[in-house]
C-alpha cells in the first residue's frame, strides 16, 4: 500500500466517491418510469477510472451487477476506440455477453473528461420494462426471439440524441415511452456522475483517479485476503438440483477451494447448457458466485472490484453457467440465484456460522401480467413478492425476504389501481419454512382474480417446483413452489400462458431451509411458532415432538 494517502484523506475521498455513485443512482431512480426500476430496485450505478477499474458503486444496488460494468466498458472500447469517445457521449448495449446476461437490461457508459483528458467512466445498468420479442419469458429457444439486441452504440453523441437508435428502439418495443424514459433516466445518472467527479478532482487538486483507484483496490483486496486467510485451507464440494426446463433438469456442482488468501469456485460437473432461456453467461455466474462470498466473509468493506481479486470463478464452456453464444438467456436469474446454495453448501462444511441455508426467495418467482384493463388501457405489471430466507446458526430465517437478489415488493393497492387484478389473499404460508434448531423463513401464498374483459397474458419465471430449498446441518427443506388455477391445473413454471377473464390464480412462494437438527430447537420457540400460526400443531408434533398442552 502506498504512502501517498493517509487513512483520513482516503476515508474522505472514498466516501465522497461512493456518494457520487449514490447521487447518480438517486437521479436514475427519481427519473425512471417503470415500476421495475422504482419498486424493485433493479439497477446499479458505477464509477470507473480511465482503465475501467471500478472505484465505487451505489450503496443499495443489485448484487448481480457487481463487477459487470468494468468488463462491459472494456468491451465497449473494442467496438468504439478510445479516441472516438467525446464529452457528452452515452454508449449503450443490451448484449447479454457484454452487458449483464439478458436483453431487458440496458448497460450504459459515458466518458468523464477533466482538463481535456479522459479520466474515467460512469456506468449504469437498469432493467427496462420491455425489450420487444417475447417479452420477459423463459421459454424462447433462441436469443433472437427474446427481443431486440443492441450492440454497443452511441445513444447520445456529444450531447445529441442519436435519433436513428431511438427510433429503432421505439419501433421494436411495447410501451416505447416508458422504455425511452428509462434509458434517459440512465442518461441523467451519467451526467450527475460526471459532474460529481469533475468537482471532486477540482476540490482535491488531483489530475486523475489513477493513484487513488490503485490504493482503494489494494485496500479492498487486502481486506478480502485477510478474511479468506482466516479460514483453513481445504477443498469442499456441494451441489444443487433444479427443475430445469421440462425433462431437462439442471444441476449445479461447486468445488470450493481455499489456499492461503485465495479462494476458487469451480463449477465443473454442472449441467450442459439447454435450449431454453435459463442459461447464465459467465459474467452473471461470476457476479452471483462472488456476492455470497462477500456476504459471508467480508460484509463490512464497501464494494469495489479489489475485493474479488483473490477470488476465482471457473465454469466449463457449454454449461448452463457458461453457455456458448448465442444461447437463450432471458431467465438466467433462475440459474444464477441458485449458486448461493451450492457455495454455502461448501462453506457450511468449514464455517457453518457464516452462512445461511437455502432460501425460498432464491431463485425469484416472477409473474409478468399483460393485457388490457376494463377501460381499454394496456397494462404490463410484474408481481413482485418473495419466499422466505434460509435459517442460520444464530436465527430463524425472515419470512418473505429477497435473497440473493434484493428486489422489493410493491404495494397491492398500487397494483390493483393500475391493472385488472384483484388480490384476494396475501399471507404467510404455515409450515412452509424448513424445520431445524433455527427454522427457515416462511414463504407466502398469493391468490388473485383476473377481472379484465379480455384474456390476460402471463409469463412465469420460476423454479423449485420439484426441488425445495434445502436445509443445512440437519435442518429440513422448505416448501416447493406452486402456481395453479382454482381447478388445480398447474401452469408451466417457465412459459407463457393465457388466463381467461374471471380465472383465479394461486401462487405459493416457498419457505427457506432450516438450520441444525429440529431436536435442538428451543421448545418455547416451537410453542410460539404454533401460537403465531407459523407452524401447525400437527407439524410441531411430528417435526419437533412438541404436543399441544392446551
Amino acid at each position: 500500500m502506498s504512502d501517498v494517502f493517509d487513512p483520513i484523506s482516503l476515508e474522505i475521498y472514498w466516501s465522497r466517491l461512493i456518494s457520487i455513485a449514490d447521487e447518480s443512482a438517486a437521479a436514475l431512480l427519481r427519473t425512471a418510469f417503470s415500476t421495475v426500476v422504482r419498486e424493485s430496485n433493479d439497477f446499479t450505478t458505477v464509477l470507473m477510472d480511465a482503465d475501467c477499474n471500478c472505484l465505487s458503486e451505489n450503496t443499495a444496488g443489485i448484487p448481480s451487477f457487481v463487477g459487470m460494468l468494468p468488463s462491459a466498458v472494456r468491451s465497449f472500447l473494442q467496438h468504439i476506440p478510445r479516441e472516438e469517445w467525446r464529452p457528452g457521449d452515452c454508449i449503450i448495449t443490451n448484449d447479454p455477453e457484454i452487458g449483464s446476461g439478458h436483453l431487458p437490461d440496458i448497460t450504459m457508459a459515458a466518458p468523464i473528461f477533466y482538463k481535456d483528458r479522459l479520466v474515467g467512466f460512469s456506468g449504469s445498468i437498469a432493467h427496462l420494462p420491455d425489450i420487444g420479442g417475447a417479452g420477459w419469458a423463459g421459454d424462447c429457444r433462441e436469443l433472437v426471439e427474446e427481443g431486440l439486441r443492441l450492440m454497443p452504440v452511441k445513444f447520445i453523441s456529444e450531447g445529441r440524441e442519436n435519433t436513428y437508435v431511438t427510433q429503432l428502439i421505439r419501433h421494436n418495443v411495447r410501451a416505447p415511452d416508458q422504455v425511452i424514459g428509462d434509458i434517459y433516466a440512465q442518461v441523467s445518472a451519467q451526467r450527475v456522475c460526471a459532474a460529481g467527479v469533475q468537482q471532486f478532482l477540482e476540490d482535491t487538486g488531483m489530475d486523475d483517479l489513477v493513484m487513488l483507484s490503485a490504493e482503494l483496490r489494494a485496500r479492498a483486496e487486502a481486506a478480502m485476503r485477510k478474511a479468506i486467510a482466516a479460514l483453513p485451507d481445504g477443498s469442499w464440494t456441494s451441489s444443487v438440483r433444479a427443475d430445469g426446463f421440462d425433462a431437462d433438469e439442471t444441476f449445479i456442482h461447486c468445488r470450493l477451494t481455499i489456499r492461503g488468501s485465495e479462494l476458487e469456485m469451480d463449477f465443473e460437473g454442472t449441467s450442459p447448457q439447454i435450449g431454453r432461456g435459463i442459461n447464465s453467461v459467465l459474467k452473471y455466474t461470476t457476479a452471483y458466485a462472488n456476492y455470497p462470498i462477500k456476504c459471508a466473509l467480508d460484509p463490512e468493506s464497501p464494494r469495489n472490484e479489489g475485493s474479488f481479486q483473490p477470488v476465482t470463478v471457473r465454469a466449463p464452456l457449454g454449461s448452463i453457467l457458461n453457455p456458448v453464444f448465442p444461447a437463450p438467456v432471458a431467465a438466467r436469474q433462475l440459474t444464477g440465484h441458485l449458486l448461493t446454495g451450492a457455495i454455502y453448501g461448501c462453506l457450511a462444511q468449514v464455517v457453518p456460522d457464516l452462512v445461511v441455508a437455502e432460501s425460498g426467495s432464491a431463485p425469484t418467482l416472477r409473474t409478468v401480467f399483460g393485457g388490457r384493463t376494463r377501460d381499454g388501457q394496456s397494462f404490463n405489471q410484474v408481481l413482485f413478492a418473495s419466499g422466505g430466507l434460509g435459517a442460520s446458526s444464530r436465527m430463524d430465517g425472515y419470512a418473505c425476504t429477497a435473497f440473493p437478489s434484493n428486489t422489493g415488493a410493491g404495494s397491492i393497492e398500487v397494483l390493483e389501481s393500475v391493472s385488472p387484478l384483484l388480490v384476494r389473499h396475501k399471507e404467510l404460508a404455515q409450515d412452509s419454512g424448513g424445520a431445524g434448531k433455527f427454522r427457515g423463513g416462511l414463504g407466502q401464498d398469493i391468490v388473485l382474480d383476473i377481472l379484465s374483459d379480455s384474456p390476460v397474458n402471463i409469463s412465469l419465471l420460476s423454479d423449485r417446483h420439484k426441488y425445495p430449498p434445502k436445509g443445512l446441518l440437519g435442518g429440513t427443506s422448505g416448501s416447493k413452489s406452486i402456481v395453479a388455477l382454482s381447478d388445480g391445473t398447474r401452469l408451466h413454471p417457465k412459459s407463457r400462458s393465457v388466463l381467461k377473464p374471471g380465472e383465479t390464480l394461486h401462487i405459493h412462494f416457498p419457505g427457506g431451509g432450516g438450520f441444525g437438527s429440529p431436536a435442538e430447537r428451543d421448545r418455547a420457540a416451537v410453542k410460539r411458532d404454533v401460537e403465531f400460526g407459523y407452524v401447525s400443531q400437527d407439524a410441531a408434533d411430528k417435526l419437533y415432538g412438541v404436543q399441544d398442552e392446551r
Partner: protein
Amino acid sequence: MGYKMSANLRVRIGVDVGGTFTDLVLVDDRRGVIFTGKQLTTHQDPSQAICEGVERIVREAGLTIDQVDGIVHGTTLVTNTLIERNGSCVGLVTTKGFRDVLEVGHEMRYDLYDLFMEKPEPIVPRPLRLTVTERMSAKGEVLEPLNENEVLESAARLVDGGAEAIAVSFLNAFANPLHELRAAELIARAHPQIPVTTSVGVAPEIREYERTCTATANAYVLPKMRRYITLLRHKLLELGFGGTLSVMLSNGGTAALSVAENAPIQMIESGPAAGAISGAHYAGLSDTAHAVAFDMGGTTAKMCLIENGQPEHSQTFEAGRVRRFRQGSGIPLKVPVIDLIEIGAGGGSIARLDRMGLLKVGPDSASSEPGPVCYRKGGEDPTVTDADLMLGYLSPEYFLGGELELDTSAVEGALKIKLADDSGLTMMEAAAGIHAVVNNNMAAATRRYIAEKGRDPRKYTLIATGGAGPVHAYGLAKELKIGRLIIPFGAGVSSALGFLLAAPAVNDVRSQIVLLDQATPEAARVMYDQMSETAVAQLIAGGADRDGIVMKSSVDIRYRGQGFDVEVELPANFLKTDFRYALRQSFEEKYKLLFGRHITDVPVEIVSWRLVASCPRPEVKLHFEGQQIDRREALKGKRRVYFAQSGFVEANVYNRYGLSAGTTIQGPAVIEERESTAVMGPDTTIKVDQYLNLIVEIEDGRGELV
C-alpha cells in the same frame, strides 16, 4: 392558541421534552424579554420536570403562573416509545386475506451484505392481527360488504387477548373509508374504554403497508400520550395555570391538545420541527432566501432547507430504526413532517479505524454517558468533542460556561492508544482527521439532500445551531462551498424557541388517481370541500380567527406509468377555473428543475390531493440585550487554533456577550457563549447584526476541500 389570541398573548412558554434535558423558553412580549431554562428530563413522569421548569422560569421572569397566557409543548415521548418499544398492546382488525401486511413489509434487506441483520418486529404480533370479511376495490366500490358480526367477534377476542388499543386498517380504505369508519364505530360502542385508530384517520393515502404501520404506531403510543396529557393538564391547573396548552406537530405547526390525544403520531418529530421553524425565523430576520438550517448536538446533526423563509415538507418518516440512521431499518410512516435529514454526527460521535485501516467517525456516540474522554466520566474512545478540544476550538475552562472542565491530557492518551499508534498518524493529525471526517460525513449527506432536490448548495446560507453546530459550521461551509453563515445568538436554545414561533396548522390529504385531462374544478371540489371544512373547524376550535386562516393546496403529480411523483402547488383559483394548463406548466417546471428535462408525449396524472390550512406565525421580537456585558470586556485573549489550510494560528477569543450590534471582526476568531462556541477561519469577516446574530462571510466563498 390561535391567531386571534396569539396577537393578544403576552407571556408564552415553549417546552421541549428531550431525551436528556427539558428545555424551556419564556417570552414576555410586554417587556420584550426572553428567559431560558433547562431541567433534567424526568422519564418516569415527564410532567414533573415540566412543572418544576415552568415554576422556576416564571419565578425567574418575575411573574406568577396566572400571568402565563400559553404553553406550547413538544416531546420525544412518541418517537422514543417507538424506539424503545414500550408502548401499549395493540390489536389490529384488517381485511380478510391480508393478515400479514405488517410482517411482510417491503420484503427487502436494508443491508445488502449482512446476512444476520436485525429487522424491526411488527408493532402488532400475529395473534393480535385478526381479519374480517369486507373488500373495497381500488376505485372505492364495495366488492364485499363489511361483516359486522366478525368485527365485533374480532374486537372481543383482541380485548380478551390483552389489547389496550385497536387499529382498523382495510385494503383500499383510502379510496372509500366507509367500512373502516363503521368498524371503528362498532368497536368503540362495544368497548368504550378502548381507543380505536382507523388508517384513514391518520394516513388516508394509497399503500397499505405504510398506512397500516401509521395506524398501528398511532394506536401503540396513544394510551400513553393520553395518560401523560391528562396528568400534565391536571398538574398545570394545580399550579394555577389558566392559559392555553397546545402542542407542536411534526409538520411545524401547533395544534390543540385534542390532536395529540387522538393522533399522537403527528407529534413524532415535534422537536426537530421546532428547530426548523426557528431556522426559518433566523433566515427571515436576515432576508435570506435560501438557507440550510444546521443543528448539531451530542449525537446527531440535522439539516433542513429553508426556501423563502419556509422549511419544506415531506409526507413520510421512518420511525424506530433498529440500526441507527440506517434507512429501511425502521417502520415507514405516512405523516406530514418537516423535510429534514438527520445523521449520526455529533459531539459525542466516536472515532475508530475500520478493518481497512480507514478513519471512521460515528454513528456510534458516547452521548452523555460515558461521554467524550475529556469529560472524565469514564469515556475511553476519542470523540468529535475531544478532537475539537485538541484543535483549540473548545476551551478547557469555558465549556458550558465553565460548568464542566475538560481534560486535555486524557484526550492525548486516548488519541494515541486508539488511533495514532495503529495508523501512523500523529496525535494532532488524528484530531484534525476526526474533525475533517465528521465534516465530510455531514457535507456528503447535505450535498445528496440538496442534489436530490435538483439544487446547488453554493447559493445557500448556513444557519448553525446546537451545541456543536457553531464549532463545525465553518468547516462544513467550506466543504459545501457555502460563502455565508449565520450563528444566532443563544444558538443552544433555538429549538425550544421554535415552539413560540410556530403557528397552528392542519394537514389533510386524499388519494385518488385522476388523469390531469379529467381534473376539473368540480373534481377538485369533491376532494377539497370536506377537507377544508374539517381543517377550518379544527383551527377555529383551537381559537383561530377564520379570516386569518391561509389555505395551501397542492397535488402529488406524475407522468402516467412513472413511480415517482412530485408535489406541485395548485393555482389559487383552482376550485373555480380550469387549472389543467397552469398545473401542467408548473409540473413541467418543477420536473425540469429536479431532473433536467421534461417529457412532452406522456399523459400526466394526479395521485394525491393535499391541503395545509394554517394561521399566520406569531410575531416574536427577540431581545437578548439584558444578557450583555461591557463591550470593553469582549476580547478575552488569544489561543492557538487549527485550520486545515493554515495549520495552527493565533486567534482572538471573544466573549459573545460583549459583542454589540455593528461590531466587525476579522477571522481567525473564536467567539464563546455559554452553550456553544463559534470558530471562524482566517478568511472570514464576522459582523454582529442588530439582533446580535453573527453574520459571517467567507472570502471568495470557494474553499478547498479540507
